[in-house]
């Protein structure tokens, strides 16, 4: 007799009923959220692919008429429709290399100063001032380069380099040129200043993440400030620092207007840093407006080459970072 009421009681008081509507709505919301995120990624990838492919498609006429000579010849002659892009490609790499050679030590010094050496009240204002450099439009850099830097280079730097370094065997080839302040070196200098805030910001952020305990232990063992930077801070932050450097390199490769003002815009291949040259971006910016048919196709192909060069550089950066991470056992 007692069992029946007990089982009835058990049956009469089941667990709290499920709320199927709410759960199903949540699952649907989750699915849509995932789809929207996937869509945003797809849009970005689509934009990237369409930009690259449209430039390649526009450049097919030049590729067909010039063949591999487009990448190997330095003869750029719009009148006779001969396009050899070696000069702008070499100029892009040269200006980017000069810019990085100047910017990386400078950024490293600024970052170390701001994180290790400077008194605390200096760090805020100086850090903000460096970041302000990144906000200046690139055409302002071009104007500043043309009206301020070029006269200084013409009057003081270029003659000095010509006289003292131009006479050395071998290396002297790099520093022999006319007494103009316009050229690959000046463009590299302007690019270095433009690129410093990016690299400095990354380095500064990442130097601050080094555990104080590591640095204090090193100091306690008698290490100087420089030894702490070289043996504790840098190895700890190596991957991020290299990432920051390649961020700056990406900007230096693609910079257009600042370079177009000071690089001299001469589509000729020279070994000297003091001679005028050109870069891919500056050449396209200068000539795209008036270019017709084959010339426009050659410029589009050149744009694709810049795309490819930037892609290769970033891929190298990733490879290097992956190898470093593997070596560190991460």
């Amino acid at each position: 007799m007692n069992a029946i009421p007990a089982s009835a009681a058990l049956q009469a008081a089941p667990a709290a009923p499920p709320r199927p509507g709410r759960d199903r709505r949540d699952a649907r919301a989750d699915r849509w959220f995932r789809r929207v995120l996937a869509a945003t990624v797809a849009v970005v990838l689509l934009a990237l692919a369409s930009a690259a492919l449209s430039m390649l498609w526009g450049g097919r006429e030049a590729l067909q008429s010039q063949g591999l000579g487009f990448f190997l010849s330095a003869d750029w002659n719009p009148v006779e429709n001969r396009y050899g892009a070696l000069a702008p490609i070499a100029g892009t790499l040269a200006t980017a290399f000069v810019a990085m050679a100047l910017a990386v030590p400078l950024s490293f010094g600024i970052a170390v100063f701001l994180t290790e050496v400077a008194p605390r009240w200096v760090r805020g204002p100086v850090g903000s001032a460096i970041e302000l450099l990144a906000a200046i439009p690139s055409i302002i850099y071009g104007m500043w380069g043309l009206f301020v830097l070029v006269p200084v280079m013409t009057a003081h730097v270029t003659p000095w380099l010509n006289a003292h370094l131009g006479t050395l065997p071998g290396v002297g080839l790099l520093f022999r040129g006319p007494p103009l302040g316009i050229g690959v070196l000046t463009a590299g200098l302007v690019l270095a200043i433009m690129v410093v805030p990016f690299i400095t910001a990354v380095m500064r952020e990442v130097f601050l993440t080094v555990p104080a305990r590591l640095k204090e232990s090193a100091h306690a063992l008698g290490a100087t400030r420089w030894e702490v930077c070289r043996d504790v801070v840098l190895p700890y932050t190596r991957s991020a620092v290299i990432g920051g450097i390649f961020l700056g390199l990406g900007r230096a490769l693609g910079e257009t207007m600042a370079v177009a003002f000071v690089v001299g815009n001469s589509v000729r291949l020279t070994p000297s840093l003091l001679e005028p040259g050109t870069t891919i971006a500056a050449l396209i910016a200068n000539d795209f407006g008036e270019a017709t048919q084959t010339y426009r196709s050659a410029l589009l192909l050149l744009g694709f080459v810049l795309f490819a060069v930037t892609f290769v550089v970033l891929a190298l950066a990733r490879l290097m970072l992956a190898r470093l991470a593997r070596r560190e056992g991460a």
Partner: protein
Amino acid sequence: MTVSALRLAPFLLAAALAATGCQPASDGTPPADAGTGPAGATRISGAGASFVYPLMSRWSADYNAATGHQVNYQSIGSSGGIAQVKQGTVDFGSSDKPLSAAELAEAGLGQFPSAIGGVVPVVNLQGLAPGELRLTGPLLADIFLGKVRAWDDPALVALNPGVALPASPISVVHRSDGSGTSFNFTNYLSKVSADWKAQVGEGTSVAWPLGVGGKGNEGVASYVQQIDGSIGYVELAYALQNAMPYASMQNADGRFVEPGAESFAAAARTADWTSASEFDLVITNAPGPDAWPIAATNFILVPKAADPARTRATLDFFRWAFASGTEQASELHYVPLPPELVAQVEAYWASGFGYE
């Protein structure tokens, strides 16, 4: 707000934005029909060479004040102007380089000159007055070819006995971007120097043998002003505005002339317009004792088969410009077309477009 209203909100917002965005085309784009504005005022658009942009701006402002009709000109370069007028997206195009009669026939365009200007070699040498330095065409070509490298070269010294030329190297400045100015300059050098014609040729963009490239007339002017011992070429307006010493040139008749409105007008007058079909004539190296050798013409291209009302509106504007716009042209350092040439252009309108 209920849950469903919250969900609908972004879609409603997007729909509202789309609705406000669908406005009729503003003044900047050419309308599909014969654009009429308020009270029958017409709206025409043109595009092309940057050389005449200041002049077109001024003419269109004064034309609007005088008649109420609107003219919109976009300075996108000669080849852009030619491309757009061929496609029919603008009512007229403007180019510093004339199209040949064959090209015009193929594209169904008419062509006539609008204004005259000139290219002027400018130098940066200490203590030189404007016009004091004398150059000949072949010598200028040799300088830009790199054959004459120093200011005290015997050829230069022989031509300028009274001028103290320094022993410094010549720095050549040219245009880095494609331009009609470069076209007229290289066209002239090709006419006077067989070496230049063989080695470099003519065009809006050429493979310059040496020198640095400045972007636009402003770029060349600023480089020449900054670099000691440099030589470049700019439109006259830039040389005058920046007070730069220019060179006198020897013209086809053998006389040395200084650049200016008079010598440009002389070149336009003595150039052989009557034998040029469809005005296909580059007036560099024009004959005549007072002609400036590197004069340049800007050409207007109008489609022959367009809507007659728009063609009429376009030619009305240019008739007004030739009749009442000459003062503005002179103020802006352009040379208005000489009266004989204007008469020839108007006869061309009558025969080619049926326009009175």
